[in-house]
């Protein structure tokens, strides 16, 4: 009987289709984190061009802010980078305080730094854990998420919410630290360190993991700068730009920490830079806890910006009026415009705010770090294979809420 298949011929004689294939990936693709569409042009398995299309999570953040009062923006900024909302809260509060010329009390600044660094650890743990999971390493993911939960326990105790805290206020924070804040935080840090050490031991000597990370998704430093890349992605290329070090804000010039940098700019470097940044954040938190005073005001003593005590609101007419005015009309931020930038979880998180002197922002523009990092993702993908998209895209730490606003 004749075989139903053709006789195998010499491979060089086979005619393969020469035309590139166009492949659509996302937005409903598990590796695209739900909100990004990539249109790939493939030559075999190799990516020759990619069109990255964000915007599927666009909610009109900037437009919504233009009809809120200044304090009502805090819940919106929570939902920008929803993995580290405290950093956004603090970043926005610092921007408005810069415009209004407010200097918050010392205790508040230390408190903000501790909460912000906790949020940064949670952010990096999520990114690294998810990156490992997408490459098939599920155990480190669970360990890192477990460590993140310990951090969220601290944040929940302080703010009452695990994810969207809405805890920042202009001129301070919503509440002073709880009684056992310091002990609780200090108890959590060793658990985080342990989780990182264990995950690292599983991953960084794993041949499969290394093969898919090292030398994949390489970004050159000069291109990274010209493309506006910031944060761990930029530092992995060897450029030591960290807003906390380069343009210190709050008390980052008074604490001792290092800025880890990579040298290849590949996925592996981005992963290791984030791991090391978690350790540096833990270092910062330990110093902050040592130096944060136990007593003292948390809010600035200025009735134009800070809500009066609830007890006074219920019992005195002056405080009732002040509270009413602040809620109904909003804080009157002086006319002007500033650009304030902090180091967010993914890089330089900038707020460009314009005030016309009324209780409502005239314009709020957020410079989302992962929007520009995602733009550079195209250069990290071209020339690699389809399978390399998953670790490379994961190492960008694209957060839809922040990227699409």
């Amino acid at each position, binding site marked *: 009987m004749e075989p139903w298949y053709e006789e195998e011929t010499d491979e060089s004689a086979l005619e393969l289709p020469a035309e590139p294939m166009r492949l659509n990936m996302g937005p409903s693709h598990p590796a695209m984190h739900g909100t990004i569409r990539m249109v790939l042009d493939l030559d075999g398995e190799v990516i020759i061009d990619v069109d990255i299309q964000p915007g599927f999570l*666009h909610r009109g953040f900037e*437009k919504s802010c233009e009809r809120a009062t200044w304090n009502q923006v805090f819940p919106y900024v929570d939902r920008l980078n929803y993995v580290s909302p405290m950093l956004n809260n603090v970043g926005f509060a610092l921007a408005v305080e810069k415009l209004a010329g407010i200097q918050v009390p010392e205790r508040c600044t230390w408190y903000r730094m501790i909460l912000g660094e906790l949020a940064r650890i949670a952010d990096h743990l999520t990114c690294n854990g998810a990156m490992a999971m997408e490459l098939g390493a599920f155990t480190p993911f669970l360990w890192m998420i477990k460590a993140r939960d310990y951090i969220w326990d601290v944040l929940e105790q302080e703010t009452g919410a695990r994810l969207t805290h809405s805890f920042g206020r202009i001129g301070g924070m919503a509440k002073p630290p709880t009684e056992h804040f310091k002990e609780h935080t200090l108890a959590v840090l060793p658990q985080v360190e342990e989780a990182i050490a264990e995950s690292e031991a599983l991953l960084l000597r794993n041949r499969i993991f290394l093969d898919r990370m090292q030398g994949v998704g390489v970004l050159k430093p000069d291109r990274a700068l*010209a*493309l506006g890349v910031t944060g761990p992605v930029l530092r992995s290329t060897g450029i030591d730009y960290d807003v906390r070090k380069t343009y210190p804000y709050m008390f980052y010039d008074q604490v001792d920490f290092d800025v880890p940098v990579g040298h290849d700019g590949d996925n592996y470097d981005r992963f290791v830079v984030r791991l090391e940044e978690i350790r540096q954040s833990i270092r910062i938190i330990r110093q902050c806890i040592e130096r944060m005073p136990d007593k003292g005001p948390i809010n600035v003593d200025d009735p134009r910006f800070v809500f009066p005590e609830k007890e006074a609101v219920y019992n005195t007419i002056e405080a009732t009026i002040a509270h009413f005015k602040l809620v109904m009309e909003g804080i009157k931020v002086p006319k002007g415009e500033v650009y304030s930038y902090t180091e967010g979880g993914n890089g330089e998180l*900038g707020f460009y705010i314009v005030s016309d002197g009324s209780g409502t922002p005239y314009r709020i523009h957020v410079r989302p770090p992962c929007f520009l990092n995602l733009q550079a993702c195209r250069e990290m993908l071209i020339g690699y294979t389809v399978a390399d998209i998953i670790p490379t895209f994961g190492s960008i730490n694209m957060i839809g809420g922040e990227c699409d606003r």
Partner: protein
Amino acid sequence: MSKQVIARLKEKFGTSVLETSDFRGDDEAVVLKTVWLEVAKFLRDDPFCAMDHYIDITAVDYPMREGPRFDVLLFVRSSTRRHRVRIRTRVHEEESLPSLVSVWPGACWSEREVFDMFGIRFDNHPDLRRILLYPEFVGHPLRKDYPIEKTQPLVPYREVPGVDKLPPFGPEMGQPWSRVDWNERLLGRDIHVSTGIGLSSGQRASVSIGPEHCVKEGEGNTQKLHE
């Protein structure tokens, strides 16, 4: 440091630099639209400025103002010299601005966003499409005259030229939503599954089960099967 950059800009471009300010420590220069691209190139290439790190481009709408309606702002910094400036220019509603993608490729998405949100066009931009919104969106939402409660028309099925897009289930193929063609059945013609579906395109074969099939227990009929 950044003040010296502003001073150098003034020295180089003279009257094209309209005003400078340093409100709250943000060094800013307002330049004419005509020198927008030259200023950007100067900032990048001048060895003293060396603004190699692109940060952002955004815009603000001032519809009540006399003169140009929009402010377009450029934020850049230098990675080696640490200074950081903000450059501003003003454009009328119908005017366009030269694109800075040739100077900093990172400007591509920012300019697309400004076009998307404000409708400001950029000349020589390689790929000026909407970025956060979809192509059929009507209007530019960050303009002050765009009402926040405005709704958008429904977008019809998008035809893409040159792309063979097959709807997953056409009328003649695939799995029908209904297992029974009720129009046929009511006319007394067909009590079976509407066999026409899929048969014409050769995708489905009809298989007869019963009446003498074991699961039909000898006397069942096809109608029972389909109930």
